[in-house]
């Protein structure tokens, strides 16, 4: 599936390295920069 600008961002909940889960829906009201990176030990 290819996403496009103007579409709603798909919802997700993932565990974080800070021992907490993060849900996208909890971040309504703020801008979110979501960066995917191929693997740790590579530049983010």
């Amino acid at each position, binding site marked *: 599936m290819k996403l496009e600008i103007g579409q709603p961002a798909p919802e997700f909940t993932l565990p974080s390295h*800070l*021992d907490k889960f*993060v849900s996208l829906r*909890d971040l309504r009201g703020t801008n979110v920069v979501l960066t995917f990176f191929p*693997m740790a030990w590579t530049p983010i």
Partner: protein
Amino acid sequence: MLGVSVDHIPCLKAWAESLGGIHYPLLSDFWPHGAVSKLYGVLRPEGYSERAIFIIDGFGIIRYIDIHDIDSQPSNEDLRKELRRIDPKVASGMPHEQQNAKNEALPSGGIVMYCTKWCSDCRRARDWLKTNNLEYREVDIDANPRAAEQLKQWTGGKRVTPTFDIDGTIVIDFDVQKLNEILKERLAR
């Protein structure tokens, strides 16, 4: 700012540590493997994701997509430019606000919650406080370095959110039982 990769949590932790600590969440899309990367159309057949940036606005709408050359690092300057375009007040105001926050004294007395904007437990705690009609103040540890430092002292170097300072008694994490105990004692006084 959220980072996502298909690495598992211990790997992300080790990596963050090797970089001297990363304070924004690195999310593990390890299991089911790459599910979120796939949802965003950036999972490669090799099993890891593209190097990609999505900017999502406050309404949950995608405003910017950059599927980057996997071997080169996206420029922070470009990213700032895009953020300014999408929300002029955010990106330009940020450094200034942070400067101010630095000098801001930490509140004490009553219920003070040390939290972040992004953590789900902080959100649950907010709901819980509201449901119980408890007055409280919030300190965003991402915006206030002094608060982050204080939190680290309390939690032994970890940044556990939410953490509460209730009239000087520290409750680490959203521990409803403990919170109830302390609030009961407080009422009895």
